[in-house]
């Protein structure tokens, strides 16, 4: 893998990968960097590059979270109180970034990781299934359930109920 290709991957996916890794650990940048380095060391790049990256980041973040929990219990609390998940929105009519982050933080992690990977990582449910080791149908069910929970937390109106 050439440096231009790696730079393009970093520019395109680093932010979403860091947000994805932040669901578990307090050092997401280190986890993402390690994933990119692991990608560089591969002689042949994986067939499905994006699911592979998300799976590596997920495993690395979970391992880092376990190690941090063993070392210092306060680091896991620091991970939940992450400084910023989203950049402040320029649209005043849009969702508040802090409220959205707080609502996301209250979701179970197995639902939250699917929402993050789908909405901000751009992965399809098949790719998410490859990354988390599950089926696409299960990922979609969790995604739909997570949206309902977020809607409840944020006080948004359900689009289906609006129609009916």
């Amino acid at each position: 893998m050439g440096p231009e290709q790696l730079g393009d991957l970093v520019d395109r996916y680093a932010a979403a990968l860091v947000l994805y890794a932040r669901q578990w650990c307090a050092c997401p940048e280190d986890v993402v960097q390690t994933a990119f380095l692991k990608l560089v060391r591969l002689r042949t790049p994986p067939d499905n590059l994006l699911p592979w990256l998300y799976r590596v980041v997920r495993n690395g973040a979970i391992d880092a979270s376990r190690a941090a929990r063993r070392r210092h219990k306060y680091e896991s609390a620091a991970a939940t109180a992450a400084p910023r998940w989203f950049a402040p929105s320029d649209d005043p009519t849009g969702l508040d970034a802090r409220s959205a982050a707080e609502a996301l933080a209250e979701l179970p992690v197995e639902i939250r990781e699917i929402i993050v990977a789908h909405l901000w990582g751009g992965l399809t449910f098949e790719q998410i299934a490859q990354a988390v080791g599950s089926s696409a149908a299960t990922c979609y069910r969790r995604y739909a359930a997570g949206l309902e929970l977020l809607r409840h937390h944020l006080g948004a109106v359900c689009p289906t109920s609006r129609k009916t």
Partner: protein
Amino acid sequence: MSDVPQDLNRPPPAPGPDPLAAALADLQPAPAELNRDRLMFAAGAASQRPVARLWMLTAGFLAAMGFAAGMYVRPSTVVYVERPPSAGAPARSAVPEVPPPAPERVPARSEERERSEPLPDLRGLSQRPPGDPDVARWLRVRNDVLAAGLGLLPDRGSRGGPSAPYYATPTPPKPGPPPQPRDDQE
């Protein structure tokens, strides 16, 4: 109508435009605090493949040849044997050893000799002048005995009675009175 498909075991269709999902997707993730330059540098270092250069091969070959040559022409080892010193062995000296005298010339035990023969009176030798022939001979014999042992001592001339000291100069017989003619020869 809900977006959730009826058969959840099949791969789901693409979700419809959910306003909440669209609003969430509009939020941009916080920019990653990755140091891009550091990442690229680390990636370059990580992508370095192990390369066996010419100087590495040459150095390895020469080292192997040197080791093989050293093993081939290794000198024979010298074995040092530590001999335990014997109990009655005399200490080595620079003086060459003199072969022991013949056993037949070894005199009898000193106690028997002392019992049978009185020791010569040597006390008077110290008072004699240095040029005295008896003193010179005694010293010569003493040196020979110290150097070669008692086997050099001469035999006693007679059996039983006392004899003159071996170092004493044989004295000529004293002239006695002239023999008197016997009466019975007449």
